[in-house]
């Protein structure tokens, strides 16, 4: 419980607070980079789960994450190519990547039911944090209409992922 809560708080504060604390609005190339990075990180976590998870619902959830996030990211790549935008690395992307690498290492040490629980709990927290960042920061800051629309599609599907993860987490209890 404590671990999950603190993970959620850390994830939320990292996305909403730290990097843009100066009140700087992210630019479209930065937003594209953050959204793409967030997707890649969840795919990496899911790939670890595909090899480590033991519960069949957790495995199926991981398959869903790979499939959906790859679909969104493919769309994102097509869009930046079309708009001739070069995604720009930034502090939020860097912090996200760093935290995800730490989490991956931490989860890597677990196994069996303990791993399943920790992975799903982190998926709940991660999607919550990403969804909140999309809603309050990334979508309102996006200036290109197509980028905004893709982020909105992302938000809709990630809200579904969050509910799905919450459901799987409840079943694991």
């Amino acid at each position, binding site marked *: 419980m404590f671990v999950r809560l603190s993970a959620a708080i850390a994830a939320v504060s990292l996305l909403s607070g730290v990097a843009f604390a100066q009140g700087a609005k992210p630019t479209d190339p930065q937003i594209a980079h953050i959204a793409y990075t967030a997707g890649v990180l969840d795919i990496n976590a899911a790939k670890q789960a595909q090899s480590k998870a033991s519960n069949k619902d957790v495995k199926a959830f991981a398959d869903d994450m790979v499939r959906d996030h790859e*679909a*969104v990211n493919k769309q994102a790549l097509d869009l930046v190519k079309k708009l001739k935008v070069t995604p720009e690395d930034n502090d939020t992307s860097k912090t996200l990547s760093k935290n995800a690498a730490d989490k991956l290492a931490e989860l890597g040490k677990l196994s069996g039911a303990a791993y399943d629980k920790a992975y799903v709990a982190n998926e709940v927290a991660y999607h919550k944090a990403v969804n909140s960042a999309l809603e309050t920061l990334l979508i309102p800051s996006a200036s290109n209409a197509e980028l905004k629309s893709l982020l909105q599609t992302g938000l*809709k*599907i990630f809200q*579904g992922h969050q509910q*799905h993860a919450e459901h799987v987490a409840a079943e694991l209890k």
Partner: protein
Amino acid sequence: MMPRWVLPIVAALSLGISISAHAATIQITMENLVISPAEATAKVGDIVELINKDIFAHTATARNGDFDVAMPPKKTVTYILKKAGTIDYYCRFHPNMKATLNVAP
């Protein structure tokens, strides 16, 4: 005298013809993670055209196990209804997507 196996084939053929003559095509669309219409009516033998307008893969999966159709992104697939009943179905990948199909005999 007619061989014994001819009769079932003739029966199946005429049945097949009568089904195709009356078969309707029902369209079900999955777009932006919503199935529409939320409730559709059809008959056994009707063709269901499952249209996926999303960039995501979906499935049309009957809760009672009657069907489980894969719907690749941006593709249309067809399925012929085989059993009557009120069938609740959903997307296995996105369980929030739900709808009902009333299939008359």
